[in-house]
């Protein structure tokens, strides 16, 4: 079993893309073990691992107790013994229950063993707001982990990126934290035909999702689509926005950001996580370090307010970045 049979002309959603990547990698690497809550018998809360246990057995597809710290800790132990591990967090919000094992144990292992031990562990889980998930089923907490040296952080926005990046993650000898945007899982608008065969997407390479000359919009995950919609509106006004989809936060593709800004001379970072100490703030700081001389206006960020994500729709949309806000800020920066 190498790859899922390619179906010409069949468009697939973001969830199926991730599912195929895991299924294929489990087949290619007999040393890959999957562990998580409800991933076996049930096939995962969202169905990402549906059929995985039937195919690869209960030894390699483990239904874990509700114990995030134990899931991460045992994944570390298995990887220490030479296995590759895919560990699912049922919702990325629950990852905080395993926080110590991630940031103090897993992330530091290669460093503190002076390179003796690298841990091939991919933690993955559904993330993101805009779906009424409320405080504990809406988070984007990537900044916690980007701030912990030793973890690669990934967040795809398209089905083919999701598949290719997941395959890369499952092969990377280092810990990877993989943010899946659950609002994109079954979004029909973004379904696409997946590349044929064993195709991976490398870490550290951003993707230009739309070319433009007037402003650069830097984003990842769900807000890439907010940027695309904003770009459509700006285009009606004769303003061309270029959209950089980072795809991986750690490692960060500084070159693509710099190259775009050198052309547009303006940049807005859009991110659905809270403002203070969010990854958007990191990006603005980096932009000042690497592209200050190209800027004709301040590098700005649009983020969620510094609040949790509330439940009721008017509340939720109030605190999150919107297409209109992107348009307004972009106009302001272009006029600056």
């Amino acid at each position, binding site marked *: 079993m190498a790859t899922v049979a390619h179906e010409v002309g069949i468009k697939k959603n973001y969830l199926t893309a991730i599912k195929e990547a895991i299924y294929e990698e489990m087949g290619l690497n007999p040393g890959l073990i999957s562990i998580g809550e409800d991933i076996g018998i049930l096939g995962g809360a969202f169905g990402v691992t549906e059929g995985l246990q039937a195919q690869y057995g209960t030894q390699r597809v483990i239904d874990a107790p509700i114990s995030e710290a134990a899931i991460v800790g045992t994944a570390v132990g298995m990887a220490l013994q030479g296995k590759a591990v895919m560990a699912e967090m049922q919702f990325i919000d629950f990852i905080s229950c395993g926080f110590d094992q991630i940031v103090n144990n897993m992330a530091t292992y290669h460093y503190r*063993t002076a390179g003796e031990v690298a841990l091939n562990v991919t933690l993955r889980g559904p993330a993101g707001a805009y779906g009424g998930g409320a405080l504990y089923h809406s988070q984007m907490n990537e900044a916690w982990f980007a701030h912990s040296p030793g973890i690669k952080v990934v967040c795809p926005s398209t089905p083919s990126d999701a598949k290719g990046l997941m395959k890369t993650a499952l092969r990377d000898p280092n810990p990877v934290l993989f943010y899946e945007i659950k609002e994109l899982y079954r979004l029909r608008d973004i379904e696409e035909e997946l590349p044929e065969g064993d195709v991976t997407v490398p870490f550290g390479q951003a993707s230009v999702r739309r070319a433009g000359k007037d402003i650069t919009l830097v984003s990842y995950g769900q807000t890439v689509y907010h940027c695309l919609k904003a770009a459509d509106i700006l285009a009606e006004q004769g303003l061309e926005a270029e959209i950089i989809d980072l795809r991986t936060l750690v490692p960060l593709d500084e070159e693509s950001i710099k190259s775009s800004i050198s052309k547009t001379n303006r940049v807005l970072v859009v991110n659905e996580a809270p403002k203070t100490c969010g990854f958007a703030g990191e990006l603005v700081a980096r932009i000042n370090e690497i592209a200050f001389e190209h800027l004709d206006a301040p590098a700005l960020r649009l983020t969620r307010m510094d609040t949790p994500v509330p439940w009721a729709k008017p509340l939720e949309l109030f605190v999150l970045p919107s297409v209109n806000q992107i348009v307004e800020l972009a106009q302001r920066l272009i006029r600056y």
Partner: protein
Amino acid sequence: MTLTPTASSAKSKAADAAPGEQRLPRTLLTPEDHLEILKQLYLARYFDVRLIKEKKRGRLRGTLYSSHNQEAVLVGSLFGLKSTDWISPIHRDMPAFFMKDLRSGWDNPDRRAMSIEEVCAQVWCKSGSPGRARDNWSHIGKKSAGIIHSTSMLAGTIPVAAGVAYADRLDGGDAVILTYNGEGSTAQGVFHEAINFAAVHKLPVVTIIENNHWAYGTPTHLEYPLQDFARRADGYGIPGSIADGQDVFDVYDKVMEAVDYARSGKGPSIVECKTFRAYGHGDHDDDRAAKYRPVEEVERGRNRDPIAVCKSYLVEKGYLTNAEAEKYKAENKSAGETTDEDFPPEVVAYLKRGVDFALKSPDPSPEEGGMWVFREGA
């Protein structure tokens, strides 16, 4: 000997264990093994007192967590392991790093452990340490030797041990993983999560509780409401036994029962070794520990020195003469009261080798501080 099996452990062992020493694991030890165990106690003690002296002279960086008076737990639990087994020692277990697999020969180059040279290089903060002095003291390990690397977060290696055990079993191995934990660490959430996981999957993980009755400055009764922590095992559906942590042979018996049980596929267990911390939590705490712990409790806790307990047993068994027992008197002395003459010369020479190596080992180069965050070339 104080064998107090819990309800479940008594039940699970009823079939193959009978009261009386004739069935105990120690009965398979040779007279030479008995003497080797005594020598290992001397080695653990000598390492500790030497480090205390070095620390007091300001030659060591960081904090020293003395294992004084708790050596029987280490020696007794390590002695029966196979070289393919794994351990995860914590801060008070520094001797474990070089005493693992010691039975295969102190100078055996293929011994699956850290060498005395590597451990001393670690203590002296030198590049000769397997971790190149990147994290301090006991936060060290060696994958190729079957030693899990700990962090400062207590009980954090138990899930790692469970993962190692799971993967090893998947590969057809029969390794048993011994994790060391203070009684204070049992209050951590991950302690529960990991043992529960190990119990569900019947993993060969033996959790040693080094119950020295003080978690830093907090007494046992404020950590858990049990007379005997081992009873907690009942809640996990696994055996829990209690060993006299001052009696190296009782520790050996209880741990070997747990190890055999684990290796036979029956699953994890907890062995509570009741012992007592000689000094403060770390050397920075010695003065305060003398105040927050009642004098009579400290005296009671230290009046059964593991070296003395071992010697009197060996004399009783006829493996050691009274004259031989009197030759090296390391027991019932504080670190400052001991001299090299209180230890067998081969013990002194062994550590000297390690210290000499450490002193000659270069400091890590500064730029190493920025290296090895990720495995490159991936």
